[in-house]
């Protein structure tokens, strides 16, 4: 009888495909995963505590740095929370601008998620470069509106930082058909690929009931077949005025998550088309004092960020600084099911599964 020994491998914190400084302690039997222990906190910057000593407005640039890929959605969630806390009304044009930015952010994020998934699968060069190309075009729009590509600091409590520049909407109108082409091309290029299917179908299966038990949200949950989207379940902003579907998949594996992201990109483009058509003229923000003093109380607001449900919980004690500033990062909570998804698979699958969950380490560690 042959005796085998397990080996322990520290995957990370320096590893090309852990999407940052994430560490997984793998126990391997040959190449099969026997145990996996995720470890994180290498990128902890204490953003929550830091924000408690800043004013409500000063914390907006910090939210950019939570999930640096979708800074606009982070701004959005935080702004919604502050508005709920202080009872601020937002003008309609600002709501439209916010929706446009949030959906563009979703496109950016899903592009990168698909691209990096293929990076992890070993198609290093091409899908991710295509994704980056289109992302750069969207980031150009962000830069045009907010002055910065990634750290936008654009959506503020009360509205947005400034009105859209004149050339923004025409540019966006031209861009939407192009992005639709891009999604079509990615589908054509990758969806049927037999090698990808061999790697992805049935890998990292997350059953629907387990996903709910782990409070997984976002594309990962919907890929498992649970039709839950904050935009529909608890409409915030003006999402109830748009006509869009919540796509779901059945299989709940890596391949389903990939398809789910592409479907969501289509839905985002649908929303964008409507928003661009209907955006009204008007004020872009209500005046909010820079040292905002919300009344005593607490508020929790959540939005459907690209990675899942992003929530902010704020407690005010009537001073200009929040008493408690807490956020619910989708990446961290989606990551909690990693072990369940990985057990019994091979080393190569760990990377794939991690890529399919789509985390940002800055969002995990905060």
């Amino acid at each position, binding site marked *: 009888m042959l005796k085998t020994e397990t080996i322990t491998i520290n995957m990370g914190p320096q590893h090309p495909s852990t999407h940052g400084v994430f560490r997984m302690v793998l126990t391997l039997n040959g190449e099969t995963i026997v145990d996996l222990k995720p470890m994180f906190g290498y990128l902890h910057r204490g953003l929550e505590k830091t924000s408690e000593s*800043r004013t409500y407005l000063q914390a907006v640039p910090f939210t950019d740095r939570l999930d640096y890929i979708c800074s606009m959605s982070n701004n959005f969630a935080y702004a919604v929370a502050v508005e709920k806390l202080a009872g601020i009304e937002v003008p309609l044009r600002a709501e439209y601008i916010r929706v446009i930015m949030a959906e563009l952010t979703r496109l950016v994020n899903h592009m990168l998620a698909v691209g990096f998934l293929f990076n992890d699968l070993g198609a290093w060069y091409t899908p991710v470069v295509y994704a980056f*190309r289109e992302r750069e075009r969207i980031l150009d729009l962000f830069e045009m*509106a907010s002055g910065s590509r990634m*750290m936008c600091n654009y959506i503020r409590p009360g509205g947005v930082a400034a009105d859209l520049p004149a050339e923004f909407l025409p540019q966006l109108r031209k861009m939407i058909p192009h992005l639709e082409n*891009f999604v079509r091309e990615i589908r054509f290029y990758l969806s049927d690929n037999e090698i990808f299917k061999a790697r992805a179908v049935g890998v990292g299966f997350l059953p629907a009931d387990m996903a709910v038990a782990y409070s997984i949200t976002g594309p990962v949950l919907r890929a498992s077949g649970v039709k839950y989207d904050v935009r529909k379940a608890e409409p915030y902003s003006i999402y109830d005025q748009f006509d869009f579907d919540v796509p779901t998949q059945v299989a709940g594996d890596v391949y389903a998550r990939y398809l789910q992201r592409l479907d969501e990109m289509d839905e985002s483009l649908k929303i964008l088309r409507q928003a661009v058509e209907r955006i009204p003229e008007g004020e872009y923000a209500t005046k909010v004092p820079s040292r905002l003093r919300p009344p005593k109380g607490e508020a929790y607001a959540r939005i459907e960020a690209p990675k899942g449900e992003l929530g902010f919980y704020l407690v005010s004690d009537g001073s200009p600084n929040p008493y408690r500033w807490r956020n619910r990062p989708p990446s961290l909570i989606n990551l909690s099911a990693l072990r369940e998804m990985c057990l019994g698979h091979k080393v190569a699958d760990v990377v794939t599964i991690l890529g399919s969950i789509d985390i940002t380490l800055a969002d995990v560690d905060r």
Partner: protein
Amino acid sequence: MYGKGIVKGLWVTLKHIWGTYAKDIKRFPRRYAPGGIAKRTDYDLYGLFTLQYPEERYEMFPRFRGALMHLRNPETGEPNCTACGACERACPHGVISLEGEGKGKDRKVTAYRYDLGRCIFCRLCVESCNFNAIELSREYELSRYKKDFILELDDLLKIGDKYGIHKTGEAWGVTE
């Protein structure tokens, strides 16, 4: 048909190879964009996308948030800053520290220290300024060989002189 995905994938990448060469041929004798300023968006799936950075660059958008600069009063040539300290209070990172002298209307800035190394370019300082004194420039090549990231008032004014503007927020549509 099994294997269709493989063929489709190869077809897509082949089209991309061809696309880049087609664009290369189109602009054959010229290697870089004319004048070193590259055009931004040309919504095309195919063709070269990369920018040959030092030889050509993008023109920054008017709203681009780069390093801080100080603006002058067009008539007197003095800095607009009155050392009110609003920017210092607005900054989330404590990047700005300043000193001033005089009271009321005569108050003038005497020292202004801006720590470029810690600045996150959020523009909250500019938004808080009521005197058209500071604005973010479009400077983005900010790396240094030494750690001398602290810019004094003179350096900031020098950047401001390059742009020759006297009002804050023109690009943002919020001039007061």
